[in-house]
């Protein structure tokens, strides 16, 4: 059976007057029903653009320049805007990072919540209101009936993010994309929101793409993890493999930058240097200027994605040896 979502060789480019900037390149991954894929990486590595490419909501001047995005049987890159309107909020939903600005300030919570039900489920206002109250209840908002009449500015950040989740889940989508939905919230609220998404995922059985740069969050919710660097995927693996046997030097660096709870005095070990932007030309491995293991070969030739196991890939020359060895073993 096909996976729920299959992204293959995605490339996203910005057309600027001077040149084309490729911000996402060669990104391939899949998400299954009921599965949570975490996309991690430093700021600017292309997490949001990958998500927005799937939604067909790229910023102006941004275009998908290569690759395919299959949602079930549908190829999303080939859909017209009108067809995408029918998919968004219905089969795929998205929650954004900034709950304070993500809701329309001049429309009531009720209006914004009813809307997708009325669009995708053809409900009348009354039926949509009943369903909205149910949804607000589900996401843990007290006195939902009164909330429907309120405006976003009357709610706290955590409450607004709950409303966003209710909106996103209104039509029980197959896939939920959450782009750092808890980054702007304090720790307690963050934990509540994560639990909520988890709970609703169990209930609806949807696939979740969860974007974050917090490895603590990854450990808590991920089934599988995709690590991105400079617009590319550098490692994909099951969550256990990522934490117990990370292969790519960048993944290892990311894990080292997680604060050690048992030993708080130890300094954070953050990877030296900064990530290249879309317009930085780097030959060979894009990570080599920062990589402690960089070899001569890394500067010349771009490493391919090596398959360490069916579910574990790493884009690093260090794995070349391992793979050939393991291949030898299998062949032998």
């Amino acid at each position, binding site marked *: 059976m096909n996976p729920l979502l299959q992204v293959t060789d995605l490339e996203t480019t910005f057309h600027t007057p001077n040149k084309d900037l490729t911000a996402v390149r060669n990104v391939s991954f899949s998400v299954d029903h009921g599965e949570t894929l975490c996309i991690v990486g430093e700021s600017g590595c292309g997490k949001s653009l990958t998500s927005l490419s799937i*939604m067909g*909501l790229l910023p*102006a001047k941004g275009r998908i320049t290569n690759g395919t995005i299959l949602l079930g049987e549908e190829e999303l890159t080939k859909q017209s*805007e009108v067809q*995408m*309107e*029918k*998919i*968004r*909020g*219905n089969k795929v*939903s*998205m929650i*954004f990072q*900034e709950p304070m*600005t*993500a*809701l*329309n*300030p*001049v*429309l009531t919570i009720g209006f*914004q919540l009813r*809307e*997708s039900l009325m*669009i*995708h489920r053809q409900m009348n206002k009354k039926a949509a209101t009943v369903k909205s109250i149910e949804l607000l209840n589900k996401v843990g908002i007290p006195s939902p009936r009164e909330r429907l009449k309120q*405006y976003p*500015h009357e709610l706290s950040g955590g409450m607004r993010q709950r409303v*966003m989740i209710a*909106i*996103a889940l209104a039509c029980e989508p197959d896939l939920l994309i959450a782009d750092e939905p808890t980054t702007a919230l304090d720790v307690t609220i963050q934990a509540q929101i994560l639990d909520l998404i988890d709970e609703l995922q169990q209930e609806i059985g949807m696939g979740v793409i969860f974007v974050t740069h917090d490895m603590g969050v990854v450990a808590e919710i991920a089934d599988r993890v995709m690590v991105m660097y400079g617009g590319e995927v550098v490692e994909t693996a099951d969550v256990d493999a990522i934490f117990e046997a990370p292969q790519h030097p960048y993944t290892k660096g990311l894990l080292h930058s997680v604060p050690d709870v048992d030993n708080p005095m130890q300094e954070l070990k953050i990877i030296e240097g900064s990530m290249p932007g879309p317009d930085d030309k780097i030959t060979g491995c894009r990570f080599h200027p920062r990589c402690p293991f960089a070899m001569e070969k890394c500067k010349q030739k771009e490493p391919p994605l090596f398959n360490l196991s069916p579910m574990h890939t790493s884009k690093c020359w260090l794995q070349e040896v391992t793979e050939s060895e393991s291949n030898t073993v299998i062949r032998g």
Partner: protein
Amino acid sequence: MVGLIIRRFLQLLLLLFGISFLVFMSMHLAPGDPATIIGGPNATASDLEAIRENLGLNRPVVVQYFDYLAGVLQGDFGYSYQTNQAVTEAIITRFPATIKLATASMIVAIIIGIVAGMISARKQNSWIDVTSTTFALAGVSIPNFWLGAMLILIFSVNLQILPVGGLNSPFYTVEGMKELILPAITLGTASAALIARMTRSSMLEVIRSDYIRTARAKGVRKHSLIWIHALKNAMIPVITVIGINFGGLLGGTIITEQVFAINGVGRLMIDAIAARDFPIVQGTVLLVAGIFVVVNLVVDIIYALIDPRISY
């Protein structure tokens, strides 16, 4: 809301008091003597003195001012030096023409401005946008009297499809509408241009906002995205511009009424200034100031209706 209205009312009183004082002083201290105008070229010195005595102009200015103020507080705005007509009466007969002109111009300005601004924003950098932005720029810079004269030349003199001037028929008749078209365009163009500019930039900003992205992520259809999610937010700054503009528009009625020979308050004021008819000048200025405050109050109320974050 009630608090706002009371506050605005007190503000209005204070404003009118200040304005009446300034206008009174500047009229009386500026060169030009109403008596010589009323008396005409053949009046003798004693004739002039008699006229001044009669009008109370030979008293100290401050005394005259408080005398005037005392009258105003009882609803007596004085009498025209020239015609002896009560100021209130003179204004009431002229007021409908001005209000008709100002309202028609504002409606023209709002409709053209918002539609042009919306189209520009939707089709950013297209030829429509460039044309409309250029027209908007020209619209702000073209002087009223020139535009009025040109319109008269083209539509009244050459094509002969619209009357040259005057507002004589009721506005709801075809004749009345025809009379209003050119003056309203003349007076409304500058405001339309400003409103279009503001609508365009405000709309472009709103379209890029997070909540529009959220709405798109929900699958909201294009037309409701624009006309519900975006428009209401985009209108907030536009309403401010409309409110501020109304003041300029009132000022513009003076010139437009001259160009189109409309017997409105503006012409009344100009004629009164030329004739040093102090009571009429005072009365018309106070009226304009009063309208300005009321319009601002209306703008504030509309504001609160559109933006739930504002409460008074």
